C-alpha cells in the first residue's frame, strides 16, 4: 500500500467517524426535544396553578359565573373549588372499576387457560379491537345504551359504562400477560393435590399474579381518570355534588372543560389541571414501580 492510498483510507475513516458522532449528537438532541414538552407542561401547570390550591379548593363546589366574575372584578381569588368534580370522578371510576375488573380478570384467565383455542383467539382479537376504539366512540355507545335506555338521561352510570369499556381490554391484557409468566409447575402442584379448579384460580393463580394484575388495573384507572370526551356525551356535568348514579354528574376533566369555556373561570383551569395531572402521574409512577419490582 503506498502512502497516498493510506492517507485516503484514513480520510474516509475520519469521515465515517465524524458522521457517526454527528448522528449521535442529533439523536441526543432530538431525544431531548421529545421529552421537553413534559417538563414545559408540568412547569406551566405548577407555575400557574399552585396558588389556587388550598383546602377550600378541594372541599367546595364550583362557583357560578357571576360569583367568579365579581371576585375577578374585585381582584380577589375566585372562591369555591372542585369538590363536585372530585366526588363525581371518584364515583365513576369506582363504578367503572367494579364493572371492568371482575370481567377483565375472568376474560384474562380464560385466555390464559385456553391458549390456541378458537374462541380464545377470537376473544383476544376482539379485546385488541376494543382497545383501539376512540374514547369518543365509547361515549356514543354508552349514550345509545345507558343514557337512552337505562337511566333515561345523562348519568354517572352512563359515564362509568363508557370508562369501563375503555378499561376492560387493558385489564384483560395485563391479566393474561401476568399469568403467562407464572411457572406452570405451581399450577400443576396444586392440581396434583386434588385442588378443585376454582381454588387453583383463587388461591394460586390470582395471588401469584396479583402485583402484575394490580399494575394493569392502576394503569387502566390512570388512563380513564383524565378522559373528558366520553363523559361529555354521558355524564354531562353538574354544579353540585351528586351521589345519585342515575343523575348528571360532574368530573374533574369535565370541570376543566367548563372552566376553559367560561372566561370568568379561566383562573381555575390551571389548578384543576394540576390536581388531575398530579393524581394521574402519581398513579402511573406507582404502577410502573410495582411492575419493575415484580419483574
Amino acid at each position, binding site marked *: 500500500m503506498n502512502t497516498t492510498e493510506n492517507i485516503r483510507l484514513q480520510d474516509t475513516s475520519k469521515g465515517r467517524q465524524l458522521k457517526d458522532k454527528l448522528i449521535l449528537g442529533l439523536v441526543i438532541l432530538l431525544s431531548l426535544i421529545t*421529552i421537553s414538552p*413534559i417538563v414545559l407542561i408540568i412547569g406551566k401547570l405548577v407555575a400557574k396553578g399552585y396558588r389556587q390550591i388550598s383546602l377550600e379548593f378541594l372541599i367546595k363546589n364550583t362557583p357560578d359565573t357571576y360569583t367568579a366574575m365579581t371576585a375577578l372584578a374585585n381582584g380577589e381569588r375566585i372562591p369555591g373549588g372542585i369538590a363536585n368534580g372530585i366526588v363525581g370522578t371518584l364515583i365513576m371510576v369506582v363504578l367503572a372499576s367494579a364493572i371492568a375488573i371482575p370481567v377483565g380478570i375472568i376474560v384474562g384467565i380464560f385466555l390464559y387457560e385456553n391458549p390456541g383455542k378458537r374462541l380464545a383467539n377470537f376473544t383476544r382479537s376482539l379485546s385488541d379491537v376494543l382497545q383501539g*376504539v376512540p374514547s369518543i*366512540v365509547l*361515549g356514543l355507545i354508552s349514550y345509545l345504551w345507558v343514557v337512552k335506555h337505562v337511566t333515561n338521561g345523562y348519568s354517572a352510570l352512563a359515564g362509568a359504562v363508557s370508562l369501563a369499556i375503555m378499561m376492560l381490554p387493558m385489564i384483560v391484557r395485563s391479566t393474561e400477560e401476568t399469568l403467562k409468566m407464572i411457572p406452570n409447575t405451581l399450577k400443576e402442584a396444586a392440581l396434583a393435590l386434588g385442588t378443585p379448579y376454582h381454588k387453583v384460580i383463587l388461591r394460586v393463580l390470582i395471588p401469584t399474579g396479583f402485583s402484575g394484575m394490580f399494575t394493569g388495573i392502576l394503569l387502566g384507572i390512570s388512563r380513564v381518570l*383524565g378522559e373528558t370526551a366520553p363523559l361529555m*356525551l354521558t355524564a354531562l356535568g353538574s354544579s353540585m355534588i351528586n351521589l345519585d348514579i342515575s343523575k348528571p354528574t360532574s368530573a374533574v376533566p369535565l370541570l376543566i372543560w367548563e372552566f376553559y369555556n367560561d372566561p370568568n373561570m379561566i383562573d381555575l383551569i390551571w389548578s384543576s389541571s394540576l390536581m388531575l395531572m398530579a393524581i394521574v402521574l402519581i398513579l402511573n409512577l406507582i404502577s410502573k414501580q410495582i411492575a419493575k419490582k415484580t419483574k
Partner: protein
Amino acid sequence: MNSDKITKLVLSLGSFILIIVAAGMVYSLVVGSIPAFKTFGFQFIFSNNWDPTSGKENYGALPFIAGTLISSILALLISLPLSFSTSLFLGEYFKGTRVARILSTLVDLLAGIPSIVYGLWGFYVLRPLMIELGIGSQGFGVFTASVILAIMIIPYATSLSNEIISMVPNDLKEAAYSLGATRLEVIQTVTIPNAHSGIIAGYILSFGRALGETMAVTMLIGNSNKVPDSLFGTGNSMASVIANQFGEADGLKLSALIAIGLLLFVITALVNALGKLIIKKMQ
C-alpha cells in the same frame, strides 16, 4: 368434577360478555346511523356540505374525514424523527443505562398526561407561538393540532420500536463491529433491517391513536366545518365534531354524528388491525 365445570363455564361466560359488548357496539352504531345513510346514501361520505339549518338539513362527512386524516398524517410525520431518535437512544445508544431509564420514564409520563391538559397547553402556549410565527391570525388550525397530536403519540411509537430495537441479537451487531463498522453503520446495516417491521407497526399503532384523539384536537383545530384549504388552515376532525355538536343534536343530526362515529370506528379498527397483523407476522 362438577365444580370444575362450573368454573370453566364462568370463565367462558366472561369471554361471551366481551363478545356481546363488541357486537353490541357495532350493532348500535349501525342502527343509529341508518337514518343518515338512508337520507344521503353514500353521498354522506363524499359530500362536504354540513348544514344543520332545519328545513334544508344536509350532512356530509368529508370535511371531518379529511380533517382527521390530514391532521393525523401530519402528526405522524412530525413525530417520526423524534420518536425514532428516542427509541435509538433507549434501545441502542444508551441501552440499559441510568440515563435511558430516566428518559424512558419521562416518555411514559408523556403518555399519562390527559388529553384535555395537552389541549390547554396547546391553547395557551403553542397557539401564541404559532401566532408569532405568523401561522394563521388566531393560531388555530390543522398544523397546530398536529403538533400537539405528534407530542401525544410519541410515547406509543417509541415504546414499541424501543422494545424491538433492543431485541436485535447482540452477536449480529458484534459481528458488524468486528468488521470495523462504526455505530451508525451498525444501526444502518444491522439494527434497522432487523427491526424495521416492528418499528413500522409502532408507527401504525400510534397513527391509530392520533385518529381518535378528541379534546386536544377540538381545542386547536379551529372547528370550521370545511375541508381544510391548507395545512395551516382551520378544519374539524371526526372525533371533535361529535364532541362539539352532540349537545344540541337529535333526529337526523344525531344520526349523522353516530354515522361519523361508525366511520371513525371502522377506520381506527382497520389501522389497528394492520399494525397488529405486522406484529403477529414478526413473531
